[in-house]
């Protein structure tokens, strides 16, 4: 079917330079054949993937439990996640390996985790990030192959890349997110009647013609330019597919209720209370977008690497504090900097609350997804590359066992990314390059 041809093309372009073998995703096909009924009957619910990023890490001593396996205890810095102990897996000891390249603080490690290659700088992000690969595989069949959000309101706060230094830009305000998802293009899956919008029909038909020029342009383009054109035509195709879904009567979605109140436009701010407010509004919209089957893959940035978060009236940002604040002799950590990482965990808890409360087919939405939360470093004062904090939440539709603490000192953190890819159904053989290349997933958590 025509759909698959595009998908293969997408794979070719997104996976360039990356040792990954992918089959055409089984999950999508399961979905499609029963898609009309999935939400109503509770069968073949789609598996979702999401990532959640906070900046400037944590304190490994106060973060890492002593015990591994199922018998681990909640540590001081995981307090905000205590109620989700049974829903999460904690990964510790994993490292970003640079292969001799310099550690560009707050850049190398986070992109090493995302792409399996530690870049020299922000201009060296070579390979696609694993969330992008996941979106390529399981993100179809819904309006948005991927939704990106940044609670800080900055267009550059994104760790999702299609490779070749292209960043997938985020939605930067709750209002923008609302308009994109629940604006005029939204078709209520539970509406009684459905009539395709003639303008959408027209737009769809116009975009279908765009592919005609592709071959002629590619013939004369240089290699670097071919990549650009590929990305452009993939984007055209995505919008075309989005429109084609708007022309179909959507499958009913039991829990979908279009938010009636449009969020107010908030000024972009890095002040933590405003970021938190923005994060909560975006989270609420995101969870409803998932329940309404508008997307299956998302990336949320609560705070960027080198966290720009600040308190009103304070001269120093979270990032500046991690470097300047002395380690308190009595406490054994930096109290002011740690306050920010704790606020971050509290907000991760907010997202998990929402994903647990949201139900589909009589189960929490979280059961049908894998949420991968991580930071850009562990101990930010030293821009540490080891002990990268990774938390995965959710059972990915039964493919993942939860409640475990997995510890592998010095293992490449790409292993956790490969684990996530396999958990959501990708037949990914390997991920990463050089010493970050891994063919091994963390099998203890996979069913």
């Amino acid at each position: 079917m025509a759909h698959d041809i595009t998908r293969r093309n997408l794979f070719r372009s997104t996976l360039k330079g990356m040792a990954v073998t992918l089959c055409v995703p089984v999950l999508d096909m399961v979905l499609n054949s029963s898609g009309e009924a999935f939400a109503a009957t509770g069968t073949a619910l789609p598996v979702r993937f999401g990532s959640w990023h906070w900046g400037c890490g944590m304190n490994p001593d106060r973060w890492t439990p002593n015990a591994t396996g199922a018998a681990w205890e909640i540590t001081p810095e995981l307090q905000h996640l205590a109620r989700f102990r049974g829903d999460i897996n904690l990964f510790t000891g994993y490292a970003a390996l640079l292969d001799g390249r310099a550690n560009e603080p707050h850049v190398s490690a986070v992109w090493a985790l995302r792409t399996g290659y530690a870049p020299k700088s922000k201009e060296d992000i070579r390979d696609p990030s694993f969330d992008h690969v996941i979106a390529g595989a399981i993100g179809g069949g819904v309006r948005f192959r991927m939704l990106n959000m940044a609670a800080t309101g900055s267009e550059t706060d994104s760790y999702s890349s299609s490779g070749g230094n292209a960043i997938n830009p985020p939605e930067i305000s709750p209002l923008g997110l609302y308009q994109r998802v629940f604006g005029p293009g939204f078709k209520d899956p539970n509406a009684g009647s459905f009539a395709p919008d003639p303008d959408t029909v027209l737009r769809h038909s116009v975009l279908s013609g765009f592919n005609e020029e592709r071959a002629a342009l590619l013939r004369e383009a240089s290699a670097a330019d071919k990549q650009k054109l590929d990305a452009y035509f993939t984007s055209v195709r995505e919008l075309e597919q989005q429109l084609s879904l708007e022309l179909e009567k959507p499958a009913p979605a039991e829990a979908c209720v279009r938010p009636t109140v449009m969020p107010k436009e908030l000024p972009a701010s890095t002040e933590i209370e405003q970021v938190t407010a923005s994060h909560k509004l975006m989270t609420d919209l995101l969870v409803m977008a998932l329940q309404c089957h508008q997307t299956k893959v998302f990336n949320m940035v609560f705070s960027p690497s080198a966290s720009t978060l600040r308190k009103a009236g304070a001269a120093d940002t979270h990032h500046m504090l991690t470097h300047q604040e002395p380690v308190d002799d009595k406490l054994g950590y930096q109290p002011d900097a740690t306050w920010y990482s704790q606020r971050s965990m509290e907000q991760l808890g907010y997202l998990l609350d929402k994903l647990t409360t949201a139900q589909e087919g009589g189960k929490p939405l979280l059961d049908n997804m894998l949420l991968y939360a991580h930071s850009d470093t562990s101990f930010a004062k030293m821009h540490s590359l080891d002990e990268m904090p990774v938390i995965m939440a959710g059972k990915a539709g039964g493919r993942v066992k939860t409640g475990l603490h997995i510890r592998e000192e010095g293992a490449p953190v790409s292993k956790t990314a490969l684990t996530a890819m396999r958990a959501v159904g990708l037949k990914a053989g390997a991920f990463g390059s050089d010493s970050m290349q891994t063919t091994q997933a963390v099998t203890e958590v996979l069913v």
Partner: protein
Amino acid sequence: MWRDHKILGTKIGRIALSLTLGAAIAVGLTGEGSVKAADPVGSSAASLSFRRLSQDQYRQSIADIFGSDIKVSGRLEPDPRREGLVAIGVANASVGAAGFEQYDAAAREIARQVTDPAHRDVLIDCKPRAASGADEVCARQFLGKVGRLLFRRPLDAGESDRFSALAGRVAAEKKDFYSGLSTSLAAMLESVPFLFRVERAVPDSNTTVGGLRLDAYSIASRLSFLMWNAPPDDALLSAAERGELSTDAGLGRQVDRMLASPRFEHGVRAFFTDMLVLDDLDGLQKDPAIYPRFSNRLAADAREQTLRMIVDTLVRRNEDYRSLFTTRRTFMSRSLGLLYGEPVTSVGGWEVHEFAAGDPRAGLVAQPAFLMAHSHPGRSSPTLRGKAIREVLLCQKVPAPPPNVNFAIVQNVKDPRFATARQRLSAHNTEPMCSGCHKLMDPLGLSLESFDGAGAMRSQENGSPLDLGGALGAETFAGAQGLGLALSKDPALSSCLVNRLYSYGTGSALDQELPWLEQIRARYETSGLRIRDLIRAIAINDAFYRLSPAVAPATVTIANDRKETPRGS
């Protein structure tokens, strides 16, 4: 299969328009037709490269072609910066899914405005026989005319046929001529030849060494984006069509015409916005408790102040680039007046302001735009300011800090021994691993410590007096005025400007010395670095449009068009 494209197609056919879907339109450069039309030199051996329009170029294109009445609303794909310039960033960028959605929305909204009753009589220079149906002649005429400006070359015959056919079918179906026109126009606005500057290179017939050079329309675009940051106008496209851009005299005539145009000021603004990273001021945040006078409005005015000063000095007064760093003449708005503590009487407007001799606020680096952009949200930063002077103004790369540095003292303002940044930095620089790079930055930035993180004057920090001594190479000085003077004498300042102009024009970093560019620099460094002269010298130089054999790849071949042709220029 509910997502099956073919089934969907049938469904659409059934439920609505009788469009032939796949063949409805094809947009862009196709086949030989466009090669001939777009290449008066007459060669069919070509290679294409693509540079995405920046946001400013997109907006400027719409304003130039349809007038400022037509609004571009909503967000557009963000512009990445690479090797110091957005011009290089967008030359390496494409369009992502979210970005294409934005271009699609913008295109439809622009097309709707252009064809709506309020604008159609002015913007569409023909009338359909009846507004309730198709009119091929008028559609073809309008789309051909607008398409030439949007694509920066004439439409080829295939494109012209397809766009007018699409307009005709939609017009017939919807019984509305203008709906048809609007649909075709929107399609043009989100297609490759509009969203990307397509540069077509052909074998260089002017040299004996081979290599490639841009074809006439690509020369026109390179020229107009360099000088105006806007697409070629009708006169420039006509000159390209007549082959005039391949003669020295013809090229010179166009360059002089463009230098004299009011659009040149916009071009100069766009270049310096890019070079000086002034777009950073858009999203700049300061803590309101620490800097109560700071606001988005102030940041926008600070940026405008710098640009006005640049245009006034370099374009209107035709002064040397180096004088930007010492000039006492500037512009004030009301909000800037409050920051400066200078009265500004005109309410919404701008006033010329001349600082007294010896005032430390003279010159570009003492302007709030530079000072606030290179500071922390709640504090000034001699290091960030010094780094910006090195990297932005002198094109010198400062290495990243080592990852495992102890910064504790640098920012521990609570310790009374380290009240000023100078005291904190000198303590920090007792570490040899730090001092190497800080020596490059701090002596420059410390001379600007009489300005706080929002750009306001101050005489002390945390109650301690400030020592404003600074150094640039062997030159030592005190305060912003001394820094400005030292900068204006540094040869790196002029070569940086020339290199940035080149990279801005070509969309590529300068990774080797180019003799022709070096000659231009040497000549004007002595006789005066006037922006008109520099841009003219680059724009009339044939080398600016050549992909030299040294950088063009050996695999560029004429016979086998399937070979990949990586392009080095």
